[in-house]
């Protein structure tokens, strides 16, 4: 049974402080949507609202054709992986995982079997008899994950479920989550602070800011065509350069920065360019060159990234960050230019 989740103009308060502001969000049946947003922006609050631990002060929440807004939490049939795990301290790892099945009247033998199978999947078979207190952080987190997954509810919510796992396990787990989610057609809401994770696991990603959703789109669209400078910054367009068009020459446009550096941009590559715009680029999107057409900068701190060197650059109107190839080591203090790499840059409306 695959259902959709809709939050309609939802507001939420803790005491007198408003945390969510007219938030609307819809997750299609069987879809996995991630919530990405800075610390304290209201991601956990959104999940708690859907789970029923917090009552919205306005707005409504629907799951399929059921109105959840006033439904008691335990009747919502929603799996939730808690950010702080919230394991039952008095139950063994296996019993923690089997808990939800027990509530659904699954017999002892069957639920133990299912719990064991799920523990196997999260790599904790050997720990089934342990008490949660004797687990490492990452192990606890996987128990929390297994506990929510095993009940196979129509809606699953994950609150930073992999934050304490190492890179490899993280990928394994996320593949596993995705596999199960797809297999069961589970509608899912996934909170993570890891963009790569969000982008790789999600059908669509919602970027949140201060209790509002700024953009909800597929990873590709978000990553390549952020709708506003907030989202752009968020998806790593560290460099936001205000520009003004000085000359239009067919598809070619010449624009200058405030500091007077001028760039020639092709509308075939960037799409239509308005008279005032922001050129957004990731460090990868500003190639550090010793010379050539580009924005002149003075190089600052250099960081080794593995696949490239990153340079903090200063210009008269602000700092920019660009990447240079491993093959060409430039020293701090040197003069250089930043050349936009068209596929990695985008054009945004100016900020209000």
């Amino acid at each position: 049974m695959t259902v959709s989740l809709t939050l309609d103009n939802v507001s939420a308060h803790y005491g007198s402080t408003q945390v969510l502001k007219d938030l609307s969000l819809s997750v299609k049946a069987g879809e996995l949507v991630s919530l990405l947003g800075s610390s304290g922006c209201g991601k956990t609050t959104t999940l708690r609202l859907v789970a029923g631990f917090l009552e919205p002060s306005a707005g409504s929440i629907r799951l399929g054709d059921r109105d959840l807004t006033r439904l008691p939490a335990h009747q919502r049939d929603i799996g939730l992986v808690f950010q702080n795990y919230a394991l039952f301290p008095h139950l063994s790892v296996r019993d923690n995982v089997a808990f939800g099945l027990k509530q659904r009247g699954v017999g002892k033998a069957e639920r133990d079997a299912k719990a064991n199978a799920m523990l196997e999947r999260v790599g904790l078979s050997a720990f089934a008899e342990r008490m949660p207190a004797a687990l490492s952080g990452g192990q606890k987190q996987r128990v929390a994950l297994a506990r929510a997954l095993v009940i196979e509810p129509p809606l699953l919510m994950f609150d930073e479920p992999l934050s304490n796992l190492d890179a490899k396990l993280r990928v394994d787990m996320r593949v596993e989550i995705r596999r199960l989610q797809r297999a069961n057609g589970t509608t899912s809401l996934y909170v993570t602070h890891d963009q790569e994770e969000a982008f790789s696991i999600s059908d669509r990603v919602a970027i949140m800011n201060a209790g509002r959703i700024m953009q909800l789109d597929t990873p590709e669209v978000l990553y390549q065509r952020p709708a506003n400078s907030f989202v752009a910054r968020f998806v790593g367009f560290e460099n936001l350069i205000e520009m003004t068009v000085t000359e239009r020459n067919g598809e070619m446009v010449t624009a200058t920065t405030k500091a007077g550096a001028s760039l020639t941009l092709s509308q075939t590559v960037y799409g239509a360019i308005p008279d005032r715009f922001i050129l957004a680029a990731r460090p990868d999107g500003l190639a550090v060159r010793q010379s050539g057409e580009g924005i002149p900068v003075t190089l600052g701190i250099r960081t080794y990234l593995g696949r490239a060197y990153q340079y903090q650059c200063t210009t008269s109107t602000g700092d920019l960050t660009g990447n240079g190839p491993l093959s060409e080591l430039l020293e701090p203090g040197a003069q250089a230019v930043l050349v936009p790499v068209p596929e990695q840059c985008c054009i945004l409306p100016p900020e209000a």
Partner: protein
Amino acid sequence: MTTKLHPLLIVFAAVIFAILVAPLFIILGAAVSDTSFLTFPPQGFTMRWFTNIFDITAFRTTAITSLQVAVTGTFLALLIGIPAAYAMNRFRIRLPSWLSNVFVLPILVPEIVLGFSLVKSITIGLELPVFATLLIGHTLLVLPYAVRVVGASLASFDFSIEEAAISLGCPPLKTFFTVVLPNIGAGVVAAFILAFITSINDVSTSLFLTGPGVSTLPIQIIAHMEQFFDPTIASVSVLLMILTVGVMAIVEATLGLTFLTK
């Protein structure tokens, strides 16, 4: 378990427990002394002060009443006290903080006055039967333990695991029993012990609340002591202790006493 205790602490605790237990040997000695008065060291040995308890009809009947009242009263107090304690910790901001002091009132008001006032208002005013009055009185008397002692355990309870259970489909009431209760077991057991003992030992309130046909063991003991000064009272204490060890042993064997502490 892994926390190491400072040797001084262990010595100190050993001394405290030695002092707590020491007088009990005197009482044990006095209870088997073959004399018609309390004495220590015991002179001779007899079990007659124990058999005396069973021989005297009034001890038996009042003991039954006392047990009924203590068990029912403690149970009722926990039944209504635990929800109150829960509400005050779970919904801290939504309940006024003075409420917790309301639940101390039953032990804060001198027992005689409580008994007197209760008789005036319910035995006379509402014409409730004696046993009902006695039960209400005892429930009231032990309510502070149920609310406050359990409340102390709930103060440090992490309510997010309750949410976890609910999100897994466990109804709130069941969640309370399967998740909250096991984790505040120490508090509930402590509350139970204190409430039960308070009820079973109570004299002053019961003085008033007993009536025609209904009396409690402590009152019977006091009546007995008006006339007789023999070691029966010591043997009653010893019996109570043996009973306690017995009950604890059964609990230990069946449930394991770990629930005592979580």
